[in-house]
């Protein structure tokens, strides 16, 4: 990153900390200098920012992030003070801003690091989004607690995390019910069916012309309307959720797979023709490999849709288990921290699922221009 911008940024962060000493923290709170533990932490953060500003190159990342951590700690300690929580004023927000600014600079600086290779690069690839996420969660936490947002609207991430840890058995059972049973089964059937129909449509023009509009038609059925019908047909347990997932994943796969099957080049098709290759040979050796980038596109989109689909379907009738069941009931009892714990569970499961698909994509479509370097 441009060293001048970097320096300017860290100086701004230091200035914000200085302002925190001058401006009021909260209406009923003494100034920052009167908080025995907090002000030295803030001071230390300021010194680290100055150091980072002096270095203003790759090396600035470390003091910058360390300073950000200190500033974050200071602001969180302040929030434990009842006088500050819910009534924070400019002085407090200055600390938050300094933290955010230095964290952002640190992340940008880190992400711009090119020189490293191999394992270190992998670690960086993980670290950057992690730091980014931490910053977001930090901002969320201080915003909720600093402004005193009612917990029934939005809990603080720490509350949701606490709830998460205390409800692990429930979350585990919900995960099995929704993800392992409903999502996975539906995902495989839905994606498989989409691919199959795409292949048929590609192979037989007649079927293609006839099936495509019908495929469009059925996949356009809205989730909220279909879910109750599926419950009616397939019962309250996971098969009805899987059926909904089949419906939502079918179409993205169909559309993408057809686009993919048409992506094979013309000379390559001619080559297969010149070999008098059978359709199944052309399919496995040319059309499917050429379609892989598109198919993975659909697999990724479907990974998210399947999860949402299964969860939403659980709003319309379930046994007393599942992520969607829990979210809807806990929302009704205003246990929003539990709702967010379930959301976090869904997000974690979904991310892992997505990550898995991405790995598979990288392993099988390495040859695509988008991966070649």
């Amino acid at each position, binding site marked *: 990153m441009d060293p001048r911008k970097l320096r300017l940024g860290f100086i701004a962060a230091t200035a914000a900390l200085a302002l925190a000493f001058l401006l009021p923290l909260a209406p009923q709170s003494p100034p920052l200098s009167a908080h025995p533990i907090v002000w030295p932490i803030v001071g230390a953060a300021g010194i680290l920012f100055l150091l980072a500003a002096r270095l203003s190159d790759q090396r600035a990342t470390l003091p910058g992030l360390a300073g950000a951590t200190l500033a974050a700690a200071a602001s969180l300690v302040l929030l434990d003070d009842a006088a500050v929580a819910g009534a924070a004023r400019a002085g407090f927000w200055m600390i938050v801003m300094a933290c955010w600014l230095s964290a952002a600079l640190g992340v940008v600086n880190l992400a711009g690091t090119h020189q490293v290779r191999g394992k270190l690069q992998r670690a960086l690839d993980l670290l950057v989004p992690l730091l980014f996420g931490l910053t977001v969660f930090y901002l969320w936490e201080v915003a909720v607690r600093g402004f005193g947002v009612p917990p029934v609207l939005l809990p603080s991430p720490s509350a949701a995390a606490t709830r998460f840890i205390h409800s692990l058995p429930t979350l585990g059972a919900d995960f099995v019910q929704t993800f392992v049973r409903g999502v996975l089964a539906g995902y495989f059937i839905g994606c498989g069916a989409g691919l199959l129909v795409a292949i048929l449509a590609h192979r037989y023009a*007649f079927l293609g012309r006839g099936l495509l509009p019908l495929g469009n038609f059925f*996949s356009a059925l*809205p989730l909220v309307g279909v879910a109750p019908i599926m419950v009616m047909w397939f019962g309250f347990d996971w098969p009805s959720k899987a059926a909904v997932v089949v419906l*939502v994943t079918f179409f993205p796969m169909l559309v993408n797979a057809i686009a993919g099957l048409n992506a094979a080049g013309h000379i390559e098709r001619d080559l297969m023709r010149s070999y008098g290759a059978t359709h199944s040979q052309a399919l496995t050796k040319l059309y499917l490999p050429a379609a892989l*980038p598109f198919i993975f596109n659909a697999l990724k*989109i479907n990974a998210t849709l399947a999860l949402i689909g299964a969860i939403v379907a659980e709003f319309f009738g379930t046994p007393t288990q599942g992520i969607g069941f829990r979210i809807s009931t806990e929302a009704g009892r205003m246990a929003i921290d539990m709702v967010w714990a379930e959301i976090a569970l869904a997000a974690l499961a979904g991310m892992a699922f997505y990550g898995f698909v991405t790995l598979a994509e990288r392993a099988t479509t390495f040859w695509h221009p988008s991966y070649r370097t």
Partner: protein
Amino acid sequence: MTSSSLALLLRPARTLRDHPLVARYAPVLTMVLALVAIWYVAAVAMNWSLVRDGFEREETPYAMSDVLAGTMDAERPLLPAPHQIASAFLDSVFGYPPLAPRSLVYHSLVTLSATLLGFLLGALFGIVLALLIVHSRVLERSLLPWIICSQMVPVLALAPIFIVVLGALGLHGLLPKSIISAYLCFFPVAIGMVKGFISPDPLQLELMRTWSATPRQVLWKLRWPASVPYLFASLKVAVTISLIGAIVAELPTGAEAGIGARLLSGSYYGQTVQLWSALVAAAVLSSALIALIGLIERETGRRMGAH
């Protein structure tokens, strides 16, 4: 009718079978007929025990044919017969003035407006996001995982709170619904377009490099046209998702009007056939939207020399 199908009509054909219009619509017709036939059989099979139980509860003597007839016009069937749906659909589309609350046209329009706005917002946002991701390594690394994460959050769970917050900000009516719909549909566009934007042939990218084209020129003259196949595949997926999103979003906004409201009240008041015709309306709507995108795709392809 499009100009191309008009041209098809005018071109003489050797036999009826070879007529381009026949070639185009015969398959659809065949499939639809096959589907309807299967549907009838399924309707009989699925509604059978329901209707029989009904007769038994009434304690009236009944014959097989009575049950058979019953499966064709049950009031709360497991699967309504196609003609039931068709007549309910036609009735609710044409039976009332188009803007009456009982008319499906009215509800479809309500949903359509939220869908279109949501689709527009979502597609734009998705494309912009893809652009940012393709052009900035920082954003790619830090944003992408969280964008994916955002899609794992079930909207239906957050929609109510979301509506409340937007309401507190003074946003009512169309916009909150559209934003929920956009939230759902931007993702396929973003993912598809990231792929599309990085799909150009390396040789073509290098050519642009030799001319030291600016990133913007590379975008408009190479990445954008090269991503067109990905764009249309994404848009088709996005538009159906956007419709589904708009319908989902109608529930936490009080379900006052729109296809979602119709679905809810159909279910709530046990009007099964009504519910099905609302479903059909949704499917018709999104088929039409997909067809429209397909039309634009073909026209774009023609201009871009597709063969």
